[in-house]
């Protein structure tokens, strides 16, 4: 009985301690909507964000000590990896899907190409524990972290207790990732009235508004929805439905082959494209939408089965517009880079 008594007092005092972590609110770009509420259990704090950033870049989270989140989410290229299906995980086996870019995640409520993860906290366990990604034995990882004195101290600062838990690890990672925002491309400055776009880019914008913006809705340039955009004819049920997209989560047959709409922000940095990275260049993507759509029962109705029929000039205009969505500041923002202490 007394053991429990002391334990509870300890927990209570820990929570009081945690009040020393400094609450911060996210700076929302003026032309962005308010993001949905973050989970109450994981408010943004200065110390939590900083710990999350350190963890993001630390290969200590992987079983072989060689793979960090940043291995496949490189900040120089909008936190993606430049490969179709990465082989950079612990096993060196290729993954079945392309590493997604990471920015403006605070506006997302579901994660992965099929939206299977219901918040950023839960999402992190996917790559952490997948044998072909970081393959972490969480108990062993925490043991390693406990042997580095800086970590218990940093967890204490962020969460009010130096007891490292898997929950605290993923909460810190989620906090850091929620702060990664990209909203300052030439397009954004044009919309705000401070910059001009070329006539080719403006023609591309007009075409974009006619054909693309219902899925790639500004200002996030995604509708956060799931669609079959005509990449495949057949959708194998192998590997726990990984090729069936949203269907494996919703079990709604209308979602077979539907994958989450990626943002078009920073596409200048995020090649290759599509959920499996099958298209090496924007030219290939535009050729595909122009006339290489594959019909299947769940093809998104807004996509003509013969394609949009863009001619070469229109493709050049769309490409020019898409490149105007590059946010150079974002790629260099020191707040997102590896902390010097690592």
């Amino acid at each position, binding site marked *: *009985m*007394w053991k*429990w*008594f002391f334990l*509870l*007092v300890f927990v*209570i005092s820990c929570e009081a301690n945690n009040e020393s972590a400094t609450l911060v609110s996210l700076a929302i770009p003026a032309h962005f909507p308010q993001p949905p509420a973050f*989970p109450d*259990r*994981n408010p943004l704090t200065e110390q939590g964000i900083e710990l999350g950033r350190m963890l993001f870049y630390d290969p200590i989270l992987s079983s072989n000590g060689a793979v960090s989140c940043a291995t496949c989410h490189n900040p120089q290229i909008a936190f993606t990896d430049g490969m179709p299906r990465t082989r950079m995980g612990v096993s060196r086996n290729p993954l079945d899907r392309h590493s997604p870019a990471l920015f403006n995640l605070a506006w997302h409520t579901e994660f*992965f190409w*099929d939206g*299977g*993860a*219901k*918040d950023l*906290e*839960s*999402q992190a*366990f*996917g790559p*952490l*524990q*997948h044998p072909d990604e970081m393959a972490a*034995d*969480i*108990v062993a990882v925490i043991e390693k972290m406990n042997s580095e004195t800086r970590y218990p101290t940093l967890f204490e600062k962020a969460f009010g207790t130096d007891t490292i*838990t*898997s*929950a605290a690890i*993923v*909460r810190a990672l989620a906090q850091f990732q929620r702060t990664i925002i990209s909203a300052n491309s030439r397009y954004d400055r044009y919309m705000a009235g401070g910059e001009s776009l070329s006539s080719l880019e403006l023609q591309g914008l007009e075409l974009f508004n006619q054909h693309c913006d219902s899925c790639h809705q500004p200002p996030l340039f995604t509708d956060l929805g799931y669609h079959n955009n005509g990449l495949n004819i057949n959708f194998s049920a192998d590997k*726990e*439905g990984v090729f069936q997209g949203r269907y*494996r*989560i919703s*079990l709604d047959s209308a979602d077979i082959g539907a994958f989450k709409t990626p943002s078009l922000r920073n596409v200048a940095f995020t090649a290759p494209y599509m959920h499996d990275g099958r298209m090496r260049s924007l030219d290939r993507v535009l050729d595909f939408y122009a006339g290489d759509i594959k019909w299947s029962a769940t093809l998104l109705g807004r996509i003509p089965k013969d394609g949009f029929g863009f001619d070469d000039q229109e493709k050049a205009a769309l490409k020019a517009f898409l490149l105007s969505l590059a946010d150079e500041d974002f790629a260099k923002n020191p707040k997102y880079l590896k902390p010097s202490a690592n």
Partner: protein
Amino acid sequence: MKIVFFLLSLVILSSCGGDIDTKPDRADITLQFEHVVGNQPLNFTSEFRTNSNQSFTVEDFRYYLSNLSFENTQTGVKYEIPNSYHLIRENGTGIASLILENMPLADYDQFNFSWGIDAEKNTSLDQTGDLDPSNEMAWNWNTGYKFLLLEGRLTPSNQGLVYHIGSNHNYKNLQVAIPQDAQIDSRTQSTMVFKVDILKAFEGVSTIDIAVNNSVMGGPFADNIAINIAQGFFQLQEIK
């Protein structure tokens, strides 16, 4: 502070209770799970048979029980164990136990428990204790928990048997009656013995051919197994 005060009063209450020669106020109640395959105790070495004579071995078996409570259905008196999420894990001996320490006693006539994790807790993985994903019972690609994991091999083919079962709609509230003569309110230690028969996952409402459906990791087919489990899987044998 209120909590501390409450706890202090509990300490006083329980220490008083021991001195008075009447029924105890509190007791440790052990839930003992006898894992069996038909009429054989489960272990990780023997070969077992389904009722349709398919043979297999078991290498891993675990499941979640949650939201345990004791109730008197006549008076409405009910004790709900707080934060009640319990991973029951077979260790090769055929018996797993869960000790519920210091339960407040009353004239209970029913024990309530659920198979699986309720929808509220089943929507995030940043949790500790038995729900910590380091227990390897989380669905990492589809946030939530496996309510039951059974792995082994078909013999003699050595083909893998993999059953990862459980989604929100499979969550099942279950009740067992506590007979009057069990007298759990008059002892400081009681044991409720449950029989958990793996074969009941493969029969009952739907008969599962384990040679055909040897690998079920979520998806629509998992419902057939979940419905069987919700029916006859957990059987109270005795209270002692």
